């Protein structure tokens, strides 16, 4: 090889020019084909106009206890949860509602095996907490729910879980989406039984089974 080049130095120049030409061809090919590959999956769809917002309804405000008293202006006097809880000892083992008393009397609780303090923050009763101990304000409760309900959150983020109102086409208008706790009572997340509305009265489909109640 080296002997050949010594005998014919011009061959090196020819090889160099040839290599450069190949490189430039490869670059042109790559630009053309890879560019096409990027645009190929984009189907014929509408030009994207200015997008409106998807708003998620905020979670509940930080709860306060109604004392039943009124102030001079006739407004209800409320107390923060921490007012009482700062003087009590947190019970991390409590996972039922049947022996709750005072402000919590009558609470219906059925949320797996969670204890009260799985979600409520023993260090700050006016907030909640994540599994790693970080505090979460009540309006941001969805972050807390999503720790366990990952599949529901995944579907929610893709728009296939949870009720909504407004526009499907965000270039035409905004959309408002429900928060987890708009539909699921966090203390009793299973949907309650409901009485169906508007039974059909059309001529064709007559009842084919006797009433079941």
């Amino acid at each position: 090889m080296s002997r050949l080049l010594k005998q014919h130095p011009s061959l090196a120049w020819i090889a160099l020019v040839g290599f450069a030409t190949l490189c430039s061809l490869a670059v042109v090919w790559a630009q053309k084909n890879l560019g096409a590959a990027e645009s190929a999956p984009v189907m014929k769809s509408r030009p994207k106009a200015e997008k409106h917002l998807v708003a998620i309804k905020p979670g509940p405000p930080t709860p306060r206890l109604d004392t039943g008293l009124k102030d001079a202006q006739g407004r209800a006097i409320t107390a923060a949860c921490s007012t009482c809880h700062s003087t009590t000892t947190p019970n991390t083992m409590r996972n039922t509602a049947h022996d709750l008393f005072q402000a919590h009397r009558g609470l219906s609780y059925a949320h797996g095996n969670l204890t009260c303090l799985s979600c409520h923050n023993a260090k700050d009763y006016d907030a909640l907490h994540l599994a790693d101990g970080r505090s979460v304000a009540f309006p941001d409760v969805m972050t807390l729910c999503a720790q366990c309900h990952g599949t529901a959150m995944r579907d929610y983020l893709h728009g296939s879980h949870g009720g909504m109102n407004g526009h499907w086409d965000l270039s035409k208008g905004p959309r408002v989406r429900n928060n987890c706790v708009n539909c699921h009572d966090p203390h009793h997340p299973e949907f309650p039984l409901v009485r169906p509305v508007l039974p059909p009265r059309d001529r064709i489909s007559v009842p084919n089974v006797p009433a079941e109640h």
Partner: protein
Amino acid sequence: MNDPAPASPKTPCGGNCSCSGGSTNASPPPGDDGSTRRAVLKGLGATLGVAAYAKALAPLTELTKETSMDEFLQKHYKELSKDEIATVITRLTQEAKEQYGADVTISDPKPQEGVKFGYALNLSICNGCRKCAEACHLENNHDRPSHQSYIRVFEMTKGSMDFEKGNVHYDHPVPQPDKYYMPVQCQQCEHPPCVDVCPVEATWKEKDGIVVVDYNWCIGCRYCEAACPYHARRFNWQKPQIPAPEINPDQSYLSNRIRPQGVMEKCTFCLHRTRNGRLPACLEACPTGARVFGDLNDPASEVRYVLENKRVFVLKEELGLKPQFFYFFDE
């Protein structure tokens, strides 16, 4: 009828015979007595005939009361020019005012370019509350007494897809533990058999996938109702009865304007809403969030996420009608 002949000497016979009555009284002209009887019968017959004719034509007079000449001569929706559709809409608005006492706005939104509507419904979530059917009833100006709605919700036994054993008349708290609930409405088929059978082309599929009806062109033969395997089409047996305050004033020509008696109607995915970018009424009413609506052509749409990531099926797939309405499960 059998008058005793001797009672009156003038009546027994025509006089052209040899009976005593005729021979004794020769003065009345022959045929005079007989023609009186004939005239009475003729008159009676004519009166009955006219009465029967008038009775037979009576529906026509009612028709002309309800159907104006403009409406009778109105062209097919697709052949109406912009001015003509405006005239038609003005007339329909006036009729709504005269007949229902409601101030309505009738629009005529066109399909959006590049949009193809798709609907998905999560059977794992639907609890059978029928709020969607109620919302449809209110949104689409359905007849109030008959509880008309484009949506029927089947209560089905878990593990079964037998609609004959499904129950749409359930009236107990839902959901029952051994049941699942399956709302059925127009599936907006890619190959709609209802469109194929229409003898007057009063129904067709629009560019955005919605099968619509020109209520003023429909002749009410109900072939489409028979052709639809989903029983998605409804017939207006009577003129819809809706109290004026309950009438939804946001109407469109091809969707929820008040339909006349004797025509077919069907779900239009609320095109008066969806073609303006809004969500359908049944979706907004769903308290469980079981319904997902969007543009099938948009890869980022919610409905495309469902189709690509969930266990999806269409109803009566074996018929090959390619519904644009999909059912899916969470698990």
